[in-house]
């Protein structure tokens, strides 16, 4: 037996293991998911804005009505994590 015979033997395997869909068709079907990339970029920007706000306006000078911003980075992190988890689940395996 050699590689030629092995290649020939692979041709005799059961149809359950073979996908006869032309690969060009499969490539056409698999559209690039651009919006996931942009969602990730937007999430990162939101995180940076949240953290940046804290640096520009330190806690001591922060007006009372802005105190809730202290926890903004944490909220962002949780939201980003949840969004990414949902998005990744939706990706085709």
């Amino acid at each position, binding site marked *: 037996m050699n590689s030629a015979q092995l290649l*020939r033997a692979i041709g005799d395997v059961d149809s359950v293991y*073979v996908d006869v869909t032309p690969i060009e068709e499969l490539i056409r079907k698999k559209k690039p998911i651009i919006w996931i990339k942009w969602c990730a970029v937007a999430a990162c920007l939101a995180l940076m804005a949240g953290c940046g706000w804290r640096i520009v306006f330190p806690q001591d000078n922060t007006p009372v009505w802005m105190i809730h911003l202290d926890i903004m980075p944490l909220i962002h992190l949780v939201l980003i994590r949840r969004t990414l988890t949902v998005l990744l689940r939706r990706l085709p395996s």
Partner: protein
Amino acid sequence: MDDHELLELLRARSESAVSALSDTCGAYRCTIAFRILQNDEDVQECLNDVYMKIWTVTENKDIRELKYYIASVTRNTAVDMYNKHKAERCAERELAVFEELQECFGSCDDAVALTDAIVITDTLHAFLATLPAQERWVFMRRYWNMDSIRQIASVCGKREDAVRKMLSRTRQKLKIQLEKEGIIL
């Protein structure tokens, strides 16, 4: 026209079956034959043989999946033709898949046992059943459909290197399986 109607036409020896056969995955058959033979003349000769085989065999054979059957006959006829031409012309350029599969046998062909084709097919079935779905799909697309690594990578959403590595790992597993079954000594 669905598979059942086409089979009926073939069994009835209708002339329209030939054109219908050409419509049914005709381009796919050309592609798969060309990937193996890489020569227009050989492809045409191969496709004529395929028509002939399908025309003569369909009468008696119970065919469940016509698309798979046609693709399988085309692929195997092209591989047989390639092997024949390779022996005759001492092969100008070897197919990449041959070189890849040679990894399973190492450098020495003499250390290989003579084995019945059915035993090899059974071993392959057992081997494929143990593989994870994606690894099996990639292996079969490469060595059954003869798709390029680039095409496979773009469908899987992986890098070409990752697909190459995955194929290499699968070939190593196959080598171990063939050794275990005594097909490779």
